[in-house]
């Protein structure tokens, strides 16, 4: 009896959690399947009455003929959107690789080893997280003008790394602390520190490392403020900066919703992949 009651509560909480998760996304993304007048309807429509995919053709520059024969024109922003997709992918992949390589040993050291100046050194690494982008934008811009880095992917990658490295380090420290105390055993066996780290810790912490990579990817893929100032309108424009045209220059909800939908696809695939991984995330606890 008790078990049965539990299942009902569990089902209810899962339903609430699903609604909480999906409704905010659904509410705006449905605009991608509506026409201008359907979006403006009052009271707002809960379901698109005649779902169609014109907006997805439009943002890539193609006209689309609705079932009613009405032609919806392609968007003038199409070139920026396509460039943005490509550049965002390049920046995110490069940032992910560099961040992961740097952050995994770094957070391991601060989570597991005792040494002098530990707190001071860690604070120094984490300090750059606390810099608000709005206050370093103008200085960064003037620095980049002098270095000729405005409108380049390299410039954007450098800035993004100053955000991802400290914050991912910070998140991973907690993860490494929870690993079982394997180093002592390794030391008894006479392994060196580097060997212990590469051959024992890394394989054990594999899932944490994947998570680190995903977080770095998302921070980079989603970065907007610096991109808006440093690369908008250039060949190095990224997707969030390209999308903002639909929000501010020519407000156009269905195009905004369509490009937002597309910008969500890569992270969604990653989230799905990650979820499959949690299932296997059974840390090999030698004590267990």
């Amino acid at each position: 009896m008790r078990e049965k009651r539990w299942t009902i509560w569990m089902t209810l909480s899962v339903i609430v959690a699903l609604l909480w998760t999906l409704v905010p996304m659904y509410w705006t993304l449905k605009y991608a399947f509506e026409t201008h007048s359907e979006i403006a309807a009052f009271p707002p429509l809960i379901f698109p009455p005649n779902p169609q995919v014109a907006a997805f053709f439009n943002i890539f520059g193609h006209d689309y003929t609705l079932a009613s024969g009405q032609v919806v024109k392609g968007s003038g922003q199409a070139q920026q959107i396509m460039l943005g997709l490509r550049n965002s992918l390049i920046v995110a992949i490069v940032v992910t690789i560099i961040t992961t390589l740097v952050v995994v040993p770094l957070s391991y050291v601060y989570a597991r080893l005792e040494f002098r100046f530990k707190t001071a050194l860690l604070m120094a690494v984490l300090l750059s997280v606390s810099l608000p982008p709005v206050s370093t934008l103008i200085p960064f811009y003037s620095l980049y003008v002098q270095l000729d880095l405005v409108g380049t992917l390299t410039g954007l990658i450098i800035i993004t790394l100053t955000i991802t490295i400290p914050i991912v380090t910070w998140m991973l420290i907690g993860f490494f602390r929870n690993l079982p105390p394997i180093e002592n055993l390794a030391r008894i066996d006479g392994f060196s520190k580097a060997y212990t780290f590469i051959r024992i810790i890394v394989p054990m912490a594999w899932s944490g490392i994947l998570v680190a990579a995903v977080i770095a990817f998302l921070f980079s893929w989603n970065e907007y403020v610096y991109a808006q100032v440093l690369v908008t309108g250039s060949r190095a424009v990224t997707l969030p900066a390209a999308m903002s045209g639909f929000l501010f220059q020519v407000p156009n909800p269905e195009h905004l919703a369509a490009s937002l939908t597309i910008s969500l696809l890569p992270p969604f695939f990653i989230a799905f992949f990650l979820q499959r991984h949690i299932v296997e995330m059974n840390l090999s606890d030698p004590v267990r």
Partner: protein
Amino acid sequence: MSNLQFALLVTVPVLCFLVIVVAYPLGYALWVSFHEVSFFGGYSTEWVGLDNYVAVLEDGDFWRSALLSVRFTVESVIFTMLIGLGLALILRDLRGRWVWLRAILILPWAVSPYGTGILFAFLGRGQSGIGTAFISLFGSEETINLIAANIVVEYLALGNAWNLAPLLAFFLLASMMTTPSRLYDLAAIDQINRFEVFLHVTLPPLRFTFFVFTCIITVLSLKQFDYIFTETQGGPGNASSVLTYQLYKISFVNLELGLGAAMSFYLLFLILAVTLGLYFFWGRREARNA
């Protein structure tokens, strides 16, 4: 190789990179904060000493937005912790053929702050929002505006939590998985009830994760800009004009760069003070216990 040497080996290159990239902008901002920059009649700067810093403190809007920032941050942290813990417990118990639902529950984390702002703007506005759509089902012609001056900060914090909670939930889940299952077996032998199991077995290993994420969410919320920019533009009126937004207005709209730079240092001090405070009053204890 000693521990310190190993630590320096991995830390020093990263530190050098960060210092080189961040030092110039920080120094430049510091220089600007002691000057008055004007664009009329050509670009010119004039040394004004601490005038900008004094002017910020005498500005009523600064204190107003500082208070809004704190309110937004505290609420974001509380909402994220509660929702994150709830999600983590649900994720943990989703087993067998329901496991794929986990992928859906962690989706909001993949949405950018920028995108979250757009989503919650359309969701909350009186004209297009879900509140209006919902009551119209019952035949009402009213509009329900969630982005109203008196509740806008709470609404923003809720959206922020929507975005951040799955990340926390994910890390909580990872920590839960490291709890040896024999502890649960022991609890079953002791016949303690579900709430006690949660309190004494599930929760303790999560405390360090809670500490780390309280810090991370505090910092992210205090420096949050894009989310608020796309959702409310500091409005309605200036009801959600938090420090970062005020900073943006002063530096990029009013072009008072000196004043903006001085204000950004107050924001930086606020962020550092809060994180250091959290570390000394909470983190050190957790680090010792672990």
